[in-house]
């Protein structure tokens, strides 16, 4: 590991202090894509999730993420599977600069992980359930995956142990944050089920459009600032990139998002005659997500291609999930964070010039799909027995704001009668 110089430390700290803007952006996107009668609950949920994940991660999760780790010897190879850091952030003040920056990065990343399933469960997920999900992710699942990928765990050692490139590469958190959030969102949607009236027994699914395109689009702009901080800081912390490589990582992030939104704009214009604001927002975020995997390891033109492809697949997958697979995902998180994260990770292997890198990326993706998704589903299924995820039908009818908070986000609005409940 390269030592971090004072200037790199200061730069990285400053970048990380900007990254909460990504959290704010995703919170606005989640809120805007939900219904107006659940807007206050959605935004309060995002705030509560940030708080709960920070506490759960400090008390439990941070212990299992760093340190030397527990190593299993299997087939003559070491498999570092669990971290062994001091309890309750002990020794953080005296830790080295790299360890301090890594922990700050993880503190911020875990909040975004838990926000992603909250967006997918919009309009029917209880606030208590959202917080309980956040605790499980921050205390158990995120520390495991982050240790495997970032903190010297077995996925990061695939290069050393099996000659697969530089091991599993994930500089900006496309796997640890985005894809983990995406598979968690899928598990939440599977357990909570669709919103009332979304999939009638006969006929097509009912369109339940987001209530505020301005929140959604402004959230995308905020997210760009946060993502720039995350990807550049991640390149420095996790990929040990030199300072001279950081502007390229920033340019790659912007190019990936730009290519993605241009592609989504064109696709929706071709399909519907006019560009679709919410799908373009999803495309922009998908470009940012895809850049999280590869911004630090590919050329600018490759980043543009990665974003362009992410922008093409996003509107098609959103439509496929809703119309063909009966997946009710109001924020499109499964596509935006899960599928685009998967594509970004694959693209990092395709465009990175290291032999065996593509296979390392495939093994990492296989781990997230084949091990982490079943684990998350099992944990959430058990959690749902203790803390029911879904609000009762009366709560869903009157809206989450009135049901859970006793007041709406827009008290002067006239709420139209919902035809689906007649």
């Amino acid at each position, binding site marked *: 590991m390269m030592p971090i110089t004072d200037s790199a430390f200061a730069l990285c700290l400053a970048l990380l202090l900007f990254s909460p803007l990504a959290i704010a952006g995703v919170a606005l996107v989640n809120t805007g894509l939900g219904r107006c009668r659940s807007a206050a609950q959605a935004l309060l949920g995002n705030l509560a999730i940030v708080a709960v994940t920070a506490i759960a991660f400090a008390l439990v999760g941070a212990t299992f993420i760093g340190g030397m780790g527990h190593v299993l010897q*299997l*087939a003559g*190879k070491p498999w570092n599977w669990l971290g062994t850091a001091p309890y309750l952030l002990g020794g953080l003040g005296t830790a080295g600069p790299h360890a301090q920056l890594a922990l700050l990065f993880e503190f911020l990343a875990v909040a975004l992980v838990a926000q992603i399933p909250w967006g997918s469960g919009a309009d029917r997920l209880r606030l208590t359930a959202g917080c309980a999900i956040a605790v499980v992710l921050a205390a158990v699942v995120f520390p495991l995956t982050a240790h495997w990928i970032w903190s010297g765990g077995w996925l990061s050692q*695939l290069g050393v142990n*099996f000659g697969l490139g530089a091991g599993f590469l994930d500089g900006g958190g496309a796997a640890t944050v985005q894809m983990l959030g995406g598979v968690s969102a899928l598990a939440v949607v*599977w357990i909570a*089920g*669709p*919103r*009332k*009236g*979304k*999939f*009638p*027994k006969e006929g097509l699914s009912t369109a339940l459009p987001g209530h505020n395109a301005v929140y959604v689009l402004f959230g995308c702009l905020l997210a760009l600032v946060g993502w720039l901080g995350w990807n550049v800081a991640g390149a420095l912390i996790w990929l040990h990139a030199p300072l001279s490589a950081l502007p390229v990582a920033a340019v790659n992030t912007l190019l990936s998002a730009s290519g993605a939104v241009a592609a989504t704009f064109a696709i929706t214009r071709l399909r519907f005659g006019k560009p679709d604001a919410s799908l373009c927002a999803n495309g922009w975020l998908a470009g940012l997500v895809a850049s999280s995997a590869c911004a630090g390891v590919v050329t600018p033109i490759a980043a543009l291609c990665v974003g362009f492809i992410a922008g093409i697949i996003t509107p098609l997958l959103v439509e496929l999930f809703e119309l063909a*697979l*009966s*997946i*009710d995902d109001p924020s499109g998180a499964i596509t935006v964070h899960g599928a685009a994260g998967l594509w970004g990770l694959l693209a990092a292997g395709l465009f990175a010039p290291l032999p*065996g890198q593509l*296979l390392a990326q*495939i*093994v990492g*993706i*296989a*781990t997230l*799909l*084949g*091990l982490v*998704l*079943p684990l998350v*589903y*099992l944990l959430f299924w058990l959690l749902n027995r203790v803390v029911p995820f879904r609000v009762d039908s009366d709560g869903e009818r009157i809206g989450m704001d009135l049901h859970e908070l006793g007041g709406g986000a827009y008290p002067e609005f006239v709420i139209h009668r919902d035809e689906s409940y007649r």
Partner: protein
Amino acid sequence: MKAFGLLVMASGFFLAIAALVLYSAPASRAAFVLCGVAVEGLGLTVAVRGHMAAARGEGR
């Protein structure tokens, strides 16, 4: 059905890991890792089909 699909996905993961350990030649290792990923894909398909049946059946 959903649980069965998830179990199949987990077995696909272990197949991919077994390929890493058992094969040293890059081609055969890559082929067997891809087989593991394909099994995961089958499991995901089964799980999604299980969800579709439940979502439409409930008619929420």
